[in-house]
């Protein structure tokens, strides 16, 4: 069993009399990477500042290694954490001086400072930049310096606030890979705040979803992304179709649901009569051509248990993919490649069938 490094209980932080963060309970285990995800303004950075002890909560408790944060000496606690913010916020001076800063704050001897700085410059692949002025670095280089600065102090807990969000895609991708390798090598307990779901999936051992200042779900990434516990989490993690329904049959794990006039089939253990939200990810939907008169279903038989007829409402290109919104009596969102959309001749108003397997449906009790 891993030991607990940080625990949060009934944490409330208010601004202008309004609670902007209200976390009932959160535990961070030794050596894990916890990705805190949520949209802008959800309270992610506020949570990080509270955990850094740079923001005092209005009520609640934060425990560090089982002891209340308030009982620790403030400076001694802050010297056990490493904080990396979205902007690198480098100081005027050389790259070496910047990475050395935290070590110098701790009054370490010159030899130890030199050794620590050189080690982490090398690990971050920026040892050739050590004499360069910090203000002459590119965005990616500057963020590497910022990370080296945080790792160099050998923190017990590393707190990161969207450190890669301002970088271009190739730079971000390279840095993410290097960062993941460093996290694996150091096994430092990390809380990583991001609004980027890919980053959370890539780095997080567990994912915490923070919406409107409240932790809505915490768990392994696959659980959070495939089995969200409420519609708001589902929407944030990319489950774009959420409809209300009622379980009408439930037998041997096979479930029949009545939703918006359709009979849908799903897998799970839900009792008959239970009201549920039916969640469907856009990438789990297959589109099939549909004849205009709609008299019969001309498409071939398949193992997919659900098939809904509808008309295309609109398209939204997303790189090589196209997000297609279909009117099935409710808006159903599917994701197809541009090539598929072109070959099928999909245009606004085109009638289609949306097909998906019973296992693609995720049910949330209402």
């Amino acid at each position: 069993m891993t030991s607990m490094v940080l625990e949060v209980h009934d944490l409330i932080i208010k601004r202008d009399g309004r609670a902007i963060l209200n976390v009932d309970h959160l535990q961070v285990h030794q050596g894990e990477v916890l990705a805190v995800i949520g949209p802008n303004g959800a309270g992610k950075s506020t949570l990080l500042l509270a955990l850094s002890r740079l923001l005092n909560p209005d009520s609640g408790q934060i425990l560090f290694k089982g002891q209340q944060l308030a009982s620790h000496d403030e400076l001694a606690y802050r010297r056990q954490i490493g904080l990396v913010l979205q902007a690198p916020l480098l100081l005027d001076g050389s790259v070496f001086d910047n990475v050395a800063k935290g070590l110098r704050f701790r009054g370490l001897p010159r030899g130890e400072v030199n050794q620590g700085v050189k080690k982490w410059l090398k690990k971050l692949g920026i040892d050739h930049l050590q004499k360069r002025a910090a203000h002459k670095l590119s965005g990616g280089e500057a963020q590497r310096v910022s990370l080296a600065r945080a790792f160099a102090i050998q923190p017990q807990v590393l707190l990161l606030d969207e450190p890669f969000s301002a970088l271009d895609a190739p730079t971000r991708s390279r840095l993410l890979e290097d960062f993941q390798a460093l996290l694996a090598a150091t096994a430092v307990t990390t809380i990583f705040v991001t609004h980027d779901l890919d980053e959370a999936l890539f780095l997080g051992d567990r994912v915490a979803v923070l919406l409107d200042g409240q932790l809505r779900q915490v768990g392994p990434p696959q659980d959070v992304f495939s089995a969200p516990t409420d519609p708001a989490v589902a929407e944030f993690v990319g489950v774009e179709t959420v409809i209300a329904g009622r379980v009408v049959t439930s037998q041997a794990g096979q479930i029949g649901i009545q939703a918006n006039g359709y009979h849908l089939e799903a897998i799970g253990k839900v009792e008959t009569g239970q009201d549920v939200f039916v969640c469907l990810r856009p990438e789990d939907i297959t589109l099939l051509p549909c004849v205009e008169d709609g008299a019969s279903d001309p498409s071939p038989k398949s193992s997919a248990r659900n098939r809904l007829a509808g008309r295309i409402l609109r398209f939204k290109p997303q790189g090589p993919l196209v997000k297609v919104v279909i009117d099935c009596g409710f808006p159903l969102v599917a994701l197809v490649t541009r090539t598929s959309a072109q070959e099928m001749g999909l245009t606004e108003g085109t009638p289609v069938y949306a097909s998906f397997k019973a296992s693609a449906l995720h049910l949330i009790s209402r």
Partner: protein
Amino acid sequence: MELIWEGIREAFFLLVSGDPEVWEITLLSLRVSGLATALSLLIGLPLGTWLAMGRFTGRKFSISLVNTGMALPPVVVGLWVSIFLWRSGPLGGLGLIYTPTAIVIAQTIIAAPMVTGLTAAALQQLDPRLRLQLLGLGASHTQMILALWREARLPLLAALMAGFGAVISEVGASMMVGGNIRHQTRVLTTATVMETGRGEFATAIALGFILLLLAYLVNLTLTWIQQRETS
């Protein structure tokens, strides 16, 4: 025109001959204004930092007061310092009126709001997240403030230059609280005023040149330090 040329000739002679009284006046000016600038830095740097970083009711009002103080007329300062130091005034017992100390007090009051206001402005222009980042790196509050001063050192040097420029060039307060007493409280500005009043334009021009030269040399040194940092 002849008067001006004669004045310039005499000024040059006074400068190169090293007239002892001129040297005395020059050194006293440097000592008094240098001390006043140093004191204003001691007051203005922490006060400006507190105004820039503190979170308290009336902060904006306090900053506006300090900014108003930056335009404090030296004669008004001279008047109030005179009232306080006058023999029958609240601090008359100290016997400071018409002494170099009185000039230092008046000049400190003139320069301090300038250094305070410009320090606050210099620190406020830094990214506010820098403070969090420094604390997040394990800085104590003192280390954080020292690091912020280092980051803002160029505008802080500008504040120092502005403070020194204001006091070395002011005449009203020095005249009122110092009295322009020969060999005691006569500084470059008061001496220039006096010589002009007496029609001794050559001496007045010479003193004016020295004043300008002094201000230039001090600011040249500070500018050199400042600009070396930017290269």
